[in-house]
């Protein structure tokens, strides 16, 4: 029974979004109610799925009941469940903030785009098929294009065009990568790919390695790893505040895909060897340095937060690039932390921008704003957590990463020195925005935007993220224990492969016994299976065989 719920995180927002567009189009209040209810339902669903995924092997949902590897499967394992919960939390907070701050009425269709965004992100986390991953990437991107330019304006539209073009180029690269992999392996189901790639002869891996490296580039674009981070600063700074906060999970989609693909399909012990490690580690180090130095060089608060997001991606990729169980567990803990703190900082930056009037977020002298003390406290907590100072979860996450990479002195030095740079950078930004105004205390505070719904709700949403950080710190023991379990599941890919591919033969025989009408279908599958066991991964018969290129023949088993 549980298995049917796996598809719900994709179907629920997919149903709700058109309802909001078509039925509640002119009534913002109904839209808001539907959106909040939808997000709450998604969160409950994600938590139920997470509980179910924690106590057992990965669960598989076969769309249309096609047998893997022929149909698309959704797979719920611990990692997917974790990402679903994180996404749902962020979605709910962002919707509440957008309602409270009035952002959702500054343009059309905010709530339905949010639902489509949720659908794409949840689908990307759940799918067990590489091409389907591409499709869900496109769904989440197209929703994000709409959200990115929500509210309009020259700078936002221009950086929106850049963002779209950059990501379209990334999508094209994704298709090239998938094409290369399909040409070699003859399948795109992740579990099936993992089996096929593992069986390839070790002396003939050139083409599949090209596919693996291309795929890495695509995910690096999404995760904003150097040298593909250029799209991120302009996009995140110009996006509406709540949208930038939601985008905190978008870079994590790239990180998730790297972790999934390079532990399952191209593991470090497998045919392609240490390719992923060799590419990722230097990229992560440079990303970390550029991100943290960027905080120091930022000319406004928004940019500083944006660069700290790049830096945190670098930190977590350092952990994931180790491809060891301990480091991955530490990286996952840091991933949750960095998503929450990045979202919190973007919301804080937006609260400040709205209250600072014409001074915006730039680092110039401005009068005291409304709620000054509260915002300063929020920023202080967020900056501490982001920089990795005790006592919050940023410190614990970095500590775990350092612990898991013991002996790599260069890496330790980079993490520690860049943390110091981040502290200096945030101190500089924070003292300009929050301390200097006390010199102008007698001036009138800038006017608030007129379309705010409920500032209290916006503060509550931001506070909820900070409370999440505190909870993550307080529950660090159980959470990191859970992450250890998740990492151990990731580093035993056989569990995932068995869950998807196991039992397919028996089910096929069962179905063949049950009814005549199922017979034809199954026979075709059996035939294809036999063909598959033959010499070529593609169903091309000998008469029509095209001239075999050198790489082709040995690649098939």
């Amino acid at each position, binding site marked *: 029974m549980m298995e049917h719920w796996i598809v719900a995180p994709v179907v629920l927002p997919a149903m709700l979004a058109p309802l909001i567009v078509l039925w509640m189009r002119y009534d913002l209040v109904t839209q808001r109610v539907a959106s909040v209810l939808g997000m709450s339902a998604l969160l409950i669903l994600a938590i139920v799925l997470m509980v179910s995924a924690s106590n057992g092997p990965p669960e598989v949902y076969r769309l249309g009941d096609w047998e893997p590897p022929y149909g698309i499967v959704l797979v719920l394992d611990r990692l997917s469940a974790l990402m679903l919960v994180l996404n749902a939390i962020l979605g709910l907070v962002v919707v509440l903030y957008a309602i409270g701050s009035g952002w959702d009425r500054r343009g059309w269709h905010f709530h339905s785009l949010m639902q489509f965004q949720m659908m794409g992100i949840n689908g990307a986390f759940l799918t067990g098929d590489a091409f389907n991953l591409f499709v869900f990437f496109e769904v989440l991107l197209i929703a994000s294009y709409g959200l990115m330019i929500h509210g309009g304006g020259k700078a936002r539209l221009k950086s929106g065009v850049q963002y779209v073009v950059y990501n379209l*180029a990334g999508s094209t690269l994704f298709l090239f990568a998938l*094409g290369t992999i399909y040409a070699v392996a003859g399948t795109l189901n992740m579990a099936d790919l993992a089996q096929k790639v593992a069986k390839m002869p070790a002396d003939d891996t050139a083409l599949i390695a090209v596919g693996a490296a291309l795929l890495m580039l695509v995910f690096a674009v999404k995760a904003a790893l150097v040298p593909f981070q250029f799209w991120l600063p302009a996009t995140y700074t110009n996006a509406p505040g709540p949208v930038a906060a939601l985008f905190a999970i978008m870079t994590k989609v790239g990180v998730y895909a790297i972790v999934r693909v390079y532990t399952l399909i191209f593991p470090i012990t497998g045919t392609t060897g240490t390719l992923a490690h060799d590419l990722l580690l230097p990229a992560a180090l440079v990303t970390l340095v550029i991100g943290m130095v960027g905080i120091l060089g930022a000319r406004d608060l928004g940019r500083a937060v944006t660069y700290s997001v790049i830096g945190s991606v670098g930190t977590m990729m350092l952990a994931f690039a180790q491809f060891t169980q301990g480091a991955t567990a530490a990286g996952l803990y840091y991933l949750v932390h960095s998503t929450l703190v990045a979202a919190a900082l973007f919301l804080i930056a937006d609260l400040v921008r709205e209250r600072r009037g014409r001074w915006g977020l730039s680092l110039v002298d401005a009068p005291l704003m409304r709620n000054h003390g509260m915002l300063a406290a929020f920023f202080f907590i967020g900056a501490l957590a982001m920089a990795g100072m005790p006592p919050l979860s940023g410190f614990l996450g970095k500590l775990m990463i350092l612990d898991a990479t013991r002996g790599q002195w260069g890496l330790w030095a980079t993490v520690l020195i860049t943390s110091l740079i981040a502290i200096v950078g945030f101190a500089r930004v924070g003292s300009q925005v929050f301390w200097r105004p006390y010199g102008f205390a007698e001036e009138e505070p800038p006017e608030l935007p007129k379309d705010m719904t409920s500032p209290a709700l916006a503060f509550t949403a931001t506070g909820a993220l900070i409370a999440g950080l505190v909870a993550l710190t307080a529950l660090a023991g159980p959470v990191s224990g859970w992450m250890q379990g998740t990492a151990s599941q990731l580093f035993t890919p056989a569990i995932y492969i068995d869950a998807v591919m196991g039992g397919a033969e028996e089910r096929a025989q069962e179905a063949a016994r049950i009814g005549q009408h199922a017979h034809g279908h199954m026979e075709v599958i059996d035939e294809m299976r036999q063909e598959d066991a033959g010499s070529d991964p593609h169903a091309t018969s000998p008469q029509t065989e095209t001239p075999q290129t050198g790489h082709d023949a040995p690649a098939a088993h």
Partner: protein
Amino acid sequence: MEVLVSSAIGVLTAAGIYMILRLRSFPVVIGMSLLSYAVNVFLFATGRLVVNQPPILREGVTSYTDPIPQALVLTAIVISFGMTAVVVMLALGAFIEAGDDRIDLDESEGDQ
């Protein structure tokens, strides 16, 4: 045929990359379309190049072509078509708002 298809993919890709590196949004959109044509042909070729064979497996058919790349290409075409429409709309919007169709951000715009 292999030479023809592979050089077509190569030329399309090269032209596409050249175009997306241009300064104005119109050539960039054209470049994106060229790139998506290139990738569609490439995807089609990943099932091996076969002429005049059915992509359907049934009794009595002994030679056939791989149907999966065709399905993938169809999906990719639909998606790239939609994406091109989105980017055209966005570029138009940016052009109307900003008064020029330069794709880069100048200093002040990037910092807002």
